[in-house]
């Protein structure tokens, strides 16, 4: 339908685009193996794991490994919540329920309202809660509040909430895409054979949509693991890895930062590979399973 020359130029454009996407990251990967006397730019002065060793010894006063652990833990919690809540909401949206339109538009807005505004809002919310707790504690003379209470803000309160406003919309949109293509005759068949609602869900719906749930999990974990803007004001006292990284961009002037970049990118790629392999395996199993003659087209 398109001429050969046109297709060829589009192909070249696409190749350049992929180079543009991956090229810079590759340069970081290479430079993180810079020799001990090497700097932030090419040429390579030798080849060593010096900067990785320097990373393992710690970067200045910052607790990189603590931040790394926090990012992984928060990522896993966000992942589980994103999958479960999006699945439940996705099922709910197949029917009508009160305020469903409002919820849909609120979710879309949550995706496109500037992240700094959400971060500010969540920070304000927890600050007001803090003030309220202190006031109530003072009024009622609750000793631990007066002595020890600092803040309700933290990784798994305000930080978790702020990140969910970013991952949940993606989860819901994927569920919409899934259920828009879902053939309800499978459910009807299960019901006709006497399955209850829970059994229908577990044995008819869940196996079919399982690969997509892996996709939601992939979004949940990776988006949380790299999330920066929304948690920036709302994370509390202890930072996640991306926040520490952003701080390091202005202070660290040797290839340690590239070593850290290589490491965190490796974690991302590991996660992406695991999810993609799981996705493929589940897809294959679903495709192989004996399926009833479909009633619909």
């Amino acid at each position: 339908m398109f001429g050969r020359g046109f297709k060829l130029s589009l192909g070249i454009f696409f190749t350049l685009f992929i180079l543009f996407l991956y090229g810079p990251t590759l340069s970081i990967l290479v430079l993180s193996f810079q020799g001990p006397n090497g700097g932030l730019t090419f040429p390579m002065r030798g080849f060593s794991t010096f900067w990785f060793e320097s990373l393992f010894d710690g970067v200045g006063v910052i607790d990189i490994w603590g931040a790394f652990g926090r990012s992984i833990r928060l990522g896993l919690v966000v992942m589980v919540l994103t999958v479960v809540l999006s699945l439940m909401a996705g099922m709910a949206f197949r029917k009508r329920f009160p305020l469903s339109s409002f919820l849909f538009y609120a979710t879309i807005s949550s995706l496109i309202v500037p992240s700094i505004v959400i971060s500010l809002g969540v920070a304000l919310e927890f600050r007001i809660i803090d003030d309220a707790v202190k006031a109530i504690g003072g009024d009622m003379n609750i000793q631990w509040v007066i002595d020890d209470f600092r803040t309700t803000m933290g990784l798994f309160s305000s930080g978790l909430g702020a990140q969910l406003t970013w991952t949940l919309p993606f989860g819901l949109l994927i569920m919409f895409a899934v259920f828009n293509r879902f053939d309800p005759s499978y459910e009807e068949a299960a019901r006709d054979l006497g399955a209850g609602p829970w059994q229908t869900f577990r044995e008819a719906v869940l196996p079919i949509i399982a690969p997509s749930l892996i996709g939601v999990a992939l979004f949940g974990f990776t988006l949380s693991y790299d999330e920066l803007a929304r948690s920036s004001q709302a994370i509390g006292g202890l930072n996640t890895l991306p926040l520490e990284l952003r701080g390091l961009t202005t202070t660290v002037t040797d290839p340690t930062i590239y070593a850290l970049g290589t490491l965190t990118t490796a974690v991302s790629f590991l996660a992406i590979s695991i999810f993609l392999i799981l996705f493929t395996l589940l897809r294959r199993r679903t495709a192989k399973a004996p399926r009833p003659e479909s009633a619909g087209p």
Partner: protein
Amino acid sequence: MFDVKRHSATLLSFPFAFVIFAFFVVPLCLVIMVSFWDYNSYSIIPDFIFTNYQDIFYGCVKSLPDLCTSFATYISSLKFVFITWLITLLTGFLVALFLVFCVSTLQMQIVLFLLCTIPFWTSNVIRMISWIPLLGRNGLVNSTMQNIGLTDSPAEWLLYSEFSVTLAFVHLYTLFMVVPIFNSMMRIDRSLIEAAHDAGASSFQTLANIIIPLSRPGIIIGSIFVITIVMGDFITIGVMGGQQIPSVGKIINVEMTYLQFPAAAANAVILIITTLMIIFAMTKLVDIRKEL
């Protein structure tokens, strides 16, 4: 009695709705509310005043045609929005066009699509600083240009400049154009294109009269994404601009570090209103829910 079966959808949606309500709707309302509050150096004081808004635009009209800080910041942001939008739209459209119409098997389409998507799941900060070895003073581009004799001294405008910020935006966010446009294009009925071809339409005519109009929903959704992200950005502008280029997000960020929450909130409200005005016309043109 409460009928669980009849209200099953409501119950199922409840946890999701709770999170969106508690961490999006309420915080957004608080931002609007607190933008009318008063503050001093250590606390915020419930009130209903407009001084936070007046402070933002203080002297702005009087000093025209010279731009005050707020106007200059917004104009700078709008400039980034427009240039980034234009480049990502063009790039995203061509990439999607290649994936949908020039790749013959579905399997290959999925592989190449994933290839475009994978960077989205890695760290933005890393992807930003990965430009340093290329664009820095002694970076690859500068040393190459000097070696082949294009310039004598290293070009300073490559890094920590408006150029590097725009480049990073395009690098980070073109995907937000590719995915929705790809999605729209995949839904185009191939027989329409064959019919156009049979009727003697050129590639260009097919593109202009069939593909572009039918990709419109994807183009609009992608545009909304790119525009809102760039409008509210402060991290990319901070890191790639060498902390020298102003942005609304940065102003909010700084005000928060000084605990001037009401002032930050007023800026946030203005930012939302500006962004909404830009995308309002676009959302009017398409029903997102039908396009998934």
